[in-house]
């Protein structure tokens, strides 16, 4: 896991892909967003979406899943090299989340993160704040989701 000092503005991390099945879409929606166009194919066909599509919160949560998997992989790599991993998180929140296109059953979304800004934390000198653009693109190359997140990342050397 990278320390704050190792992070550069412009760094891009490919987080991997996820294919949304109708079953997954409905399972998430029944639990958290049971609007008709997320739980029923026929109702969805009659809606403005035209077909069953994932809750936007499902699309966003899968970004987090792949980001967490990626972080875990990095932590294991650092430990194998006999070093201590940097602490990441928690995030303070996010802004400008855009659900740009529906994610339909069968769509495969490629997720990534790009560092927009890295700055010292005023409140916690042993951490920095990293601002990232999180995105997901479908198999046609269309962007379906983007948001800007801010997260605490531990510094190797505490700041002033």
């Amino acid at each position, binding site marked *: 896991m990278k320390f704050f000092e190792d992070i550069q503005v412009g760094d891009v991390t490919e987080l991997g892909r996820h294919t949304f099945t109708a079953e997954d879409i409905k399972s998430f929606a029944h*639990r*958290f967003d049971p609007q008709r*166009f997320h739980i029923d194919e026929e109702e969805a066909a009659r809606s403005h979406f035209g077909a069953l599509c994932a809750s936007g919160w499902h699309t966003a949560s899968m970004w987090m899943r792949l980001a967490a998997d990626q972080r875990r992989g990095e932590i294991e790599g650092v430990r194998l090299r006999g070093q201590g991993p940097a602490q990441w998180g928690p995030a303070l929140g996010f802004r400008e989340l855009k*659900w740009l296109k529906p994610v339909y059953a069968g769509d495969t979304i490629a997720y990534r993160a790009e560092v927009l800004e890295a700055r010292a934390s005023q409140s916690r000198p042993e951490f920095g704040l990293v601002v990232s653009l999180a995105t997901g693109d479908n198999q046609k190359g269309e962007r379906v989701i983007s948001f800007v997140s801010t997260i*605490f990342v531990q510094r190797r050397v505490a700041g002033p």
Partner: protein
Amino acid sequence: MRGRPRASKPPARNTARNGGEGLYAAGRFANDSGMSEPKLYFEDFEPGAVTVYGPRLVTREEIIAFAAEFDPQPMHLDEAAASATLLGGLAASGWHACALTMRMICEGFVLDAASMGSPGVDEVRWLKPLRPGTQVRLRATVLDKRASNSRPDRGFVSYLFEMIDESDAVLTAMKTPLMVLRRVPGSAP
């Protein structure tokens, strides 16, 4: 033509429920009577209206279950590991708080509304950790609304959704526009 209930605010349902058994029961809403015949249209939302939904118990089991599926980081999965992080103990994923907010507004009014989903979220702030055993409520404030410029059949209702705990502390604050059909397309908002 159907009647036009001029609700001053979306009606609150009693959404109190146990967060444990039955939480993830599929089909809970499949026969919801409000689904095909919306009661709330764009015209019914009034800026300034404040409604509180809930309470809802957030259990340790559901925090860990969500994290295992969508945010498998130690601070959301394991009490001992979580105590070593900035969160200082087990807390729900922020995305879980967002998903629970969505669930509570679905139960609160979205399933009764001519909802067309949402184009996005202006901002979410995770202000305080959501701990196991918290009885959360959702305070929904209509900030503003505007008719769509390009589509006369719909409008946008901007909301502030605040997840609050037993002592009214705000845990999560979300600002988001909801897209809702107009009862009378093209009429004055």
